[in-house]
């Protein structure tokens, strides 16, 4: 969970549980399209108090704008929409799963089933990179992608991420 502890120095190896907000996970996204999914995930982060003083609507708009510039659908059914904002204090991520799949104009043209949405502080680009490193380290593993897609409750998502943090093969 994001501790929002400003004093915290991010170690080289960031863990999923350092920045994924467990209150902002949606194991069954109803959204049928990309923008609605983004709006829903940003809202969850807002409700969880992870957006600092930034306006929810502003972040939603900026994530969509960023996504329009170049898709973050990296292939293999995953997308990592993200934005940097000056009002955000620490990097925070929401996770959404779609069972029917969402068109993200992904690199491999396939639908996206797992979305990890990140908001990061503008002033700390290194923190953003370390969170991305962590996300992609796991997302590039087929086992992790499969397990994530199979989650049906927020608890299952949380358990999987905690397990992945401890298990270097997951």
């Amino acid at each position, binding site marked *: 969970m994001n501790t929002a502890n400003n004093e915290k120095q991010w170690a080289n190896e960031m863990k999923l549980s350092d920045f994924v907000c467990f209150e902002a996970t949606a194991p069954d996204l109803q959204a049928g399209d990309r923008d609605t999914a983004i709006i829903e995930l940003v809202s969850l982060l807002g409700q969880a108090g992870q957006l600092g003083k930034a306006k929810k609507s502003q972040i939603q708009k900026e994530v969509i704008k960023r996504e329009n*510039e*170049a898709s*973050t659908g*990296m*292939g*293999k059914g995953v997308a*990592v929409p*993200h934005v940097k904002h000056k009002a955000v204090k620490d990097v925070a991520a929401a996770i959404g799963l779609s069972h029917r799949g969402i068109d993200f104009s992904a*690199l491999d043209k396939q639908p996206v089933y797992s979305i990890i949405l990140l908001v990061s502080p503008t002033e700390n*680009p*290194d923190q*953003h*990179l*370390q969170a*991305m*490193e962590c*996300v*992609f*380290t796991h*997302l*590039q593993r087929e086992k992790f992608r499969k397990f994530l897609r199979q989650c049906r409750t927020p608890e299952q998502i949380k358990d999987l991420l905690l397990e992945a943090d401890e298990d270097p093969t997951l």
Partner: protein
Amino acid sequence: MQSWRCMVEEDTLENEVVEAELEIRNVDGLHMRPAMQFVDIANRFESQITVSNDQTSIDGKSIMQISMLAATCGAKLRIQAEGPDARQAVKALRELVEEKHFDEPIP
């Protein structure tokens, strides 16, 4: 004998290995947009491209793997290209990373 020598030369040409150390110079480091530029250029070449930091070596043509490097401003990466166009590949990547610094601001 002549044909044997030709084979060797051809082989040598095809297997050229070129290495370089590149420093990340833009403030925001190798985040997704620069990573995509990198992969885009790497994929224009036939050569196999490997990128390494202190901890790991990855495929320079994979966006997911490049994103795993978390190369911050000032970080040094070793790139190795192996193949018929290895030299051109390294030259193009060096230009992108060090000269153009991904068309992003530097400190």
